[in-house]
């Protein structure tokens, strides 16, 4: 099966991102495809490379980046939600006249159309949130 995943909450505050990660890993282990993970609302905060969680705890952003690289998963951060919350890639930061960007490896910023497209072309759409 081909999965489209939506993550509505940021790392650590809610379990949503963790559950989504575990689901994706289990799905991949079972031979399924994770087509896209779309981060919306505070979910965009999973995509900043500047988190420094305690050494003895999981690093959620790195888990997503690693998983995406290993399995060619499209990690998309919604541009509208990202702008509200200050997640920027280099192009967007430049466009907005900001002095830096913070997007994490493997994530890209794009529009809500990517979420709808995922729902259309995949076999299953799952939502993890609060």
């Amino acid at each position: 099966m081909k999965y489209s995943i939506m993550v509505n909450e940021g790392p650590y505050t809610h379990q949503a991102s963790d559950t989504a990660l575990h689901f994706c890993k289990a799905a991949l282990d079972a031979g399924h495809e994770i087509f896209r993970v779309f981060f919306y609302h505070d979910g965009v905060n999973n995509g900043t490379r500047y988190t420094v969680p305690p050494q003895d705890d999981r690093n959620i952003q790195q888990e997503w980046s690693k998983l995406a690289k290993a399995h060619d998963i499209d990690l998309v951060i919604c541009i509208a939600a990202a702008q509200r919350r200050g997640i920027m890639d280099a192009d967007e930061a430049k466009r907005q006249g900001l002095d830096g960007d913070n997007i994490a490896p493997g994530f890209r910023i794009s529009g809500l159309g990517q979420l709808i497209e995922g729902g259309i072309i995949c076999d299953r759409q799952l939502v993890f949130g609060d």
Partner: protein
Amino acid sequence: MSTLHTVNKSPFERDSLSSCIRLAAKGCAILLIEDGVFGAMSGTDHSDMVQGAMKDATVYVLGPDLAARGMSEDRVIDGIQVVDYSGFVDLTTKFDTCQSWL
């Protein structure tokens, strides 16, 4: 069409579980995850509601979330099946649509 409903909030915190039960069609499945696992426990103020739902829906609970919260599988309502993440994935393949009650 058949649906897998997931509920991730405790029935003591929010109306997600009661709303799900009220709006889930006959023949669907309900999977309790994250804080939603408290809805699977016997002897609570919500156990009757969940047992009632089990007449029309198959109810599952995510084992790792139970264990994390110190909830023993022995005390889960009779008839609720404990699954792990691969069981969760399996359920999504058996039902046509997934609906999250947040």
